[in-house]
């Protein structure tokens, strides 16, 4: 599944959203995946529980999180959701906090997650100028332009 096409066609995007803490930030992304019929609501609980026991292992770089849980935690189909925050939140990782861009992932198999979904997310964000443009985008049209430039 192509990340960019998916984001643009499912409209699983929320920009400059408000979240008081990391859990609310994760919730915003999961809500988009629930609305897209990609995950069951319990996917949120799984991400929170895993984060509390393992720490936020999915922080890719400063400012950037990629929350996800295992396929068996309520994934119905592959999906991506993009959330940017009006004000960044701390996930408890000095190397990467504060976080204000989240790509929430759902994948129907660990192999798809590791070898396709995550590689696509990392490729999208391994460009500081692009990350800055995504961070500053105020509406879907701007996001479409940024993603369309790739």
């Amino acid at each position: 599944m192509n990340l960019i096409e998916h984001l643009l066609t499912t409209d699983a995007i929320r920009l400059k959203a408000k979240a008081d803490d990391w859990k609310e930030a994760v919730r915003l992304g999961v809500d988009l995946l629930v609305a897209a019929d990609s995950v069951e609501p319990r996917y949120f609980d799984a991400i929170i529980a895993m984060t509390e026991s393992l720490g936020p292992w999915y922080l890719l770089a400063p400012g950037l999180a990629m929350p996800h849980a295992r396929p068996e935690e309520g994934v119905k189909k592959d999906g991506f959701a993009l959330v940017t925050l009006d004000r960044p939140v701390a996930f408890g990782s000095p190397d990467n906090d504060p976080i204000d861009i989240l790509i929430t992932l759902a994948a129907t198999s660990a192999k798809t997650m590791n070898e396709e979904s995550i590689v696509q997310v990392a490729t999208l964000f391994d460009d500081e100028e692009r990350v800055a443009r995504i961070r500053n985008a105020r509406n879907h049209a701007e996001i479409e332009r940024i993603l369309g430039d790739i």
Partner: protein
Amino acid sequence: MYAQEVEIVNPTGLHTRPGNAFVKKAKEFTSTINVIKGEKRANAKSLLTLMKVGCSMGDHVTIEAVGPDEVDAVDGLVAFVATLKD
């Protein structure tokens, strides 16, 4: 410069949780460390670049370091990869 090849033996590869643990281990060393798979290179201290390369079970990768603790860094990370179970 010092380098060693290692085979990824754990089912999850250097993805997500094991990848994050690998990056944390790499940050214990001061040397510049790269993970090389074929034509692709990742900074071992950046989960983002490591995820972009995508190291899966069965892949052979080269861990290469340049710096004052390059031998310890490479040997330490090769040993670390061999202990991954997840």
